């Protein structure tokens, strides 16, 4: 059992926000999904105050050892989320983490208020890092602003606050440290790297213009950022970015993460989380034996 901000988790592998929709997956894979649920906690896709349709298609581009997405945070808004999704997620039997994004501090305040008396929500992840929405980036990339935001939000909730940092910054350690000073209970990283692709005729391919790079291509960047954050903060770290094997997960844990999140690899293998957590357990057992 792992103690993550007071939440007990069966193993260190969770999903990355926006990379696993349990409702859709259940429709595809039936009860087997629940019986063999691959993650020790379930992180929701980013929820905003008002519903969002997301970006116009095309939303995907396959790149060298990775992909670029410009999904644009489609979600039913906090009300729709609470009314339609949360009850379903609760059936999973694992702790739930709700990922939220506001474009102003006031929006974050309202999001936290809406979640506060929902006991199904074990923790809240603050997305201050989405490269597709200008505001998320700006707050997350500026240490001072990030600290002020956390100082404002921290007193408003009993639930642990996880800050999802932006990787598109000069000094991610400084941002993590600012989040910690502001009262964050944990940090998670990395989100996607700002990226772009052109289609036919040299026009931007993605409907959203640019997007975010994920997958093995960013793995080594994630490792460096997690390592530098670990040198700066004492709060738990959720490491992610290109994890596709137990060895990748072990590397993130080695440099200081407490949990590991799997995003893109779940697209290639829906049960990747379970495979990675099994590989990780095997690696630990081998090391313990030697």
């Amino acid at each position, binding site marked *: 059992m792992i103690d993550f901000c007071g939440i007990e988790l069966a193993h260190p592998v969770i999903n990355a926000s926006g990379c696993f*929709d349990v409702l*859709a*997956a259940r429709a595809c*894979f039936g009860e087997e999904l629940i019986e063999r649920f691959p993650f020790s906690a379930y992180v929701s896709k980013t929820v905003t105050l008002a519903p969002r349709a997301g970006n116009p298609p095309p*939303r*995907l581009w396959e790149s060298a050892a990775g*992909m670029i997405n410009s999904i644009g945070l489609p979600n039913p808004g906090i009300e729709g989320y609470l009314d339609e999704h949360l009850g379903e997620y609760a059936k999973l039997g694992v702790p739930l983490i709700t990922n939220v994004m506001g474009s102003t501090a006031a929006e974050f305040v309202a999001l936290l208020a809406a979640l506060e008396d929902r006991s199904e929500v074990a923790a809240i992840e603050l997305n201050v890092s989405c490269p597709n929405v200008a505001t998320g980036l700006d707050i997350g990339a500026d240490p001072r602003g990030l600290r002020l935001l956390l100082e404002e939000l921290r007193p408003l909730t009993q639930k642990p606050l996880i800050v999802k940092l932006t990787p598109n910054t000069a000094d991610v350690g400084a941002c993590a440290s600012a989040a910690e000073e502001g009262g964050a209970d944990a940090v998670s990283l990395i989100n996607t790297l700002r990226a772009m692709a052109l289609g036919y005729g040299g026009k931007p391919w993605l409907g959203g213009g640019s997007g975010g790079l994920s997958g093995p291509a960013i793995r080594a960047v994630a490792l460096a950022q997690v390592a530098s954050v670990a040198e700066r903060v004492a709060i738990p770290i959720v490491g992610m970015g290109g994890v596709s094997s137990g060895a990748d997960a072990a590397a993130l844990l080695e440099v200081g993460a407490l949990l590991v999140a799997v995003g893109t690899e*779940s697209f290639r*293998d829906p049960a990747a989380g379970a495979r990675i957590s099994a590989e990780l357990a095997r690696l630990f057992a081998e090391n313990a034996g030697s």
Partner: protein
Amino acid sequence: MSAPFGRRVAVVVSRVELGAYVVLEVADDATPAAPGQFYMLAAVERWGGGEDERPFLGRAISALAARGERRVAFLLEDVGPGTRRLCELEAGDDMYLVGPLGRGFVPPEDGQEALLVGGGVGIPPLAMFQEAWGGRALLGFRDAQRAPGASLFDNPEVATDDGSVGHHGPVTDLLDRVLGEGGEFVLYGCGPPGLLEALRVRALRHGVAAQLCLEAPMACGFGACYGCVVETTEGYKRICVDGPVLDAAVLV
């Protein structure tokens, strides 16, 4: 009926060339697919290292037939690094399989005649449809290298862009003739975007129902990434879980 959770390894049991296409048969004893459903496929070995260091993600490929027992077949055309690698696979090679996925075609009601209108590599769902529920197949191909795809159908009517086989012109010429004859038709379409749009317009014009099997770049195939959306009257819909077969009436 749901798909097994996760990606499984399946063995290619046969590889047959059908003109420019490749038909792979794969051993699999999971739930059989319904017409219009698809799988996410990848080669187990060497998935990557092609053009632009791709493929990386699995590729959505329609079920062609659940031939005999514990088999699923696919029809492939080499159009890029992913299909190229899949087309290379030989009997005995391993493949990753997720599926069957998505919502397939709804069969016609009694008294309705199913018109199956397919273009190019879009024919697999229709071949499976015809096997299950019958229907009259109108097929369009680019040329004589691709027209052998028609051999997957009973009594197909064929058009080719270059006139090398069957009618010289678009498959919609065949459709317009049939629609002109009158009858209680339902259209079932699968093929390139231009063909699907032509079917949507004809369905509207003739007041007939049409079910269209759509395509979009997909990362996951099971609703996880929200990448494969198409605009509908009810907002963006994920083709992989709300489709790939959608009623033409909801498309905008």
